[in-house]
């Protein structure tokens, strides 16, 4: 029943999150929600294999974005420490 409409609604909300928030982790959440919506559309149309592919791809992208966010945060922290050392001479 209207799995397509519900999935498209979730994809639209995910797009809104991606547009409105500008952090990597928020992007990861948005991509995750979008992939869930697309997987639900695939399930509703009887394509479980396609849903598996979408889910695996979404998980990979979310893990990559989360790891990138952690790496960027740590890099900025290292830069901050280096700046402090330079200021202290």
């Amino acid at each position, binding site marked *: 029943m*209207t799995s*397509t409409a519900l999935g*498209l609604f979730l994809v639209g*909300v995910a797009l809104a999150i991606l547009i409105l928030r500008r952090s990597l982790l928020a992007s990861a959440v948005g991509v995750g929600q979008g992939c*869930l919506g697309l*997987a639900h559309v695939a399930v509703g149309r009887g394509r479980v294999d396609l*849903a598996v592919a979408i889910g695996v791809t*979404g*998980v990979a992208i979310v893990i990559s974005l989360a790891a990138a*966010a952690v790496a960027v945060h740590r890099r900025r922290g290292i830069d901050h420490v280096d700046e402090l050392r330079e200021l202290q001479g």
Partner: protein
Amino acid sequence: MCGTCRAVLFAVVVVIAGCAAFVALLTTRLERMAAAVGVVGSALSAHALAFSGPAAAAVLLVSTVAMMAAVLGAVAVLEVDARPQRRLQFWKLGLLVPLVAVVVLVGEPLDGGTLVAGGRATAIAVLTLGVATVAVPLLVRRTQGGSPPNGDP
């Protein structure tokens, strides 16, 4: 499962998805966004279990758990919870009304036009979102206006 039960279950999933969209668009905390998406994924999994079978439900549930575990792990590592709270921006909720209207217009023909009950449930969700878009800011403004500026009772 009878037709009425299917319609009720779909309406419950639609309402859960709408509420989670509210939370995900309004909150400034990432763990709440991730929790909202996790709730949506669980509702979708229950919907797939009822209409498509356990394999589809397992796919959605495993995907949801893996995605949100990655996000929540990164949130825990970064400790982004310590950020100061920003003002809520209620205009974001206005995005939901045209979004749902477009989704109904696109989704109904794609589903073959045989989903009258689901279409009604979606229309009810549209009306609920529209009313809440107007009512929630008014209620919050009235509540904030009645208390002293320093927050003391």
